[in-house]
């Protein structure tokens, strides 16, 4: 009885869907609407609090952001942070990629290195940063190394999963037909790892910039983290928000303009 009722219902919904259901909004539009909602939520909170010293609304923060951008200071600090993010990102991704593939493909190596991985995965970011500054000094190298060390274990763990899921028969096929090492890397290995690489890159980037901010907060004289530290000491909430928001905007832009198109390209064959 219930089966019949269910299937009746399904067929009615299907019919209505086909005729009258509105088409879903495009992703870009949803994104803009959703972020506008966040802006309104922030504005409402600020209005409720009614104390711009504690929570300034968008109508206070955005003009200050404009002033900071016009003066050029914003770009200097954004640039410094972005450069550190880029260096740490490239270092962590390439080392983690190699390590992860090796551990995924070589069970014996994995048995020995897995406890190390667990150790480094659980090492608090703050401890690594402080130790790097103490051991290497309060300089750029220490900053990049600290961020990379924080991120490498995560990339390794994610790429190891990717390498474990590699297709054995395809590797056999490549060997039988005598494909070159380069060709195997490009046409067999990397396409299989691409989805893992893409998700690792996205989660990696968001983690790395947060750690870079802590590094700058603790020991650099330039960058978004440094500015946040400075304005934190002066209890200038508006300026803290100016710098935080502008860097989030930069990261959103990188996500939308670089990472998402790359991911779409890598997934093209699935949708064909």
């Amino acid at each position, binding site marked *: 009885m219930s089966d019949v009722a269910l299937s009746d219902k399904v067929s009615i919904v299907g019919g209505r869907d086909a005729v009258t259901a509105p088409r879903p909004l495009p992703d870009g539009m949803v994104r803009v609407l959703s972020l506008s909602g966040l802006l309104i939520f922030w504005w409402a909170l600020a209005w409720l609090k009614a104390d711009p010293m504690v929570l300034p609304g968008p109508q206070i923060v955005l003009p200050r952001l404009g002033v900071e951008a016009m003066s050029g200071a914003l770009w200097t600090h954004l640039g410094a942070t972005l450069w550190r993010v880029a260096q740490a990102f490239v270092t962590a991704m390439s080392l983690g990629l190699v390590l992860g593939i090796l551990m995924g493909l070589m069970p014996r190596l994995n048995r020995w290195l897995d406890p190390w991985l667990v150790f480094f995965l659980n090492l608090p970011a703050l401890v690594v940063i402080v130790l790097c500054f103490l051991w290497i000094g309060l300089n750029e190298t220490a900053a990049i190394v600290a961020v990379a060390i924080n991120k490498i274990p995560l990339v390794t763990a994610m790429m190891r999963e990717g390498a474990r899921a590699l297709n054995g*028969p*395809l590797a*056999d*096929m490549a060997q039988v037909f*005598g494909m070159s090492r380069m060709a195997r890397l490009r046409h067999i290995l990397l*396409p299989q790892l691409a989805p893992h690489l893409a998700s690792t890159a996205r989660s990696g980037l968001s983690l790395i910039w947060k750690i870079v901010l802590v590094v700058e907060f603790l020991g650099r004289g330039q960058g978004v983290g440094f500015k946040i530290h400075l304005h934190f000491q002066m209890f200038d909430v508006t300026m803290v928000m100016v710098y935080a928001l502008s860097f989030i905007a930069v990261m959103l832009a990188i996500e939308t303009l670089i990472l998402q198109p790359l991911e779409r390209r890598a997934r093209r064959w699935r949708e064909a």
Partner: protein
Amino acid sequence: MSLQVAIRTKRFGATDVLRDLAFQVARGEVLAVLGPSGVGKSTLLRILAGLDTAFDGQVRREGRLAMVFQEPTLMPWRSALDNLRLTTGVNAQQAEAALSRVGLTGKGALYPGQLSLGQQRRLSLARAYAAKPDILLLDEPFVSLDQTLVEDMLALTESVIAEQRPATVFVTHARAEADRLATRQMMLTAQASA
């Protein structure tokens, strides 16, 4: 002689899977390897293909090798044409010709996922054809196909082998397929083992 095989033993753990196996396959010959499941047919083929080197004995292969696997084993992220070009090194024109040879004219731009299972099998055969092999290994290539498709693929495989005359080793458990394609047959039987 294109393929010379002398296997003393192949073990998995303490079990002898293959023992005292010696044969040769010349160009133009088709050797069918028959036997029940689990008797070591696929293991033998992996040894012949060079995919399994952990055995006691010797395998001599002369010339280019190609293989048709149980599953189509295609790169799903590359077009049909690229699946031929990248594995065998032929140019686009030769790849098109190989596609036409197996009845896939005009399908070169499609991804394997856009082809039917029958077409994927044909593509897999086209890959072996494009490689112009001296040695061709067939690992139960018609298993799990419906009867009409088996007939199609058998006819196609037969004509491709007749055209290129490689030394062929054809693993199957279907006697009728062996009778159709093979010039010689070899039966693997389970050995008295612990």
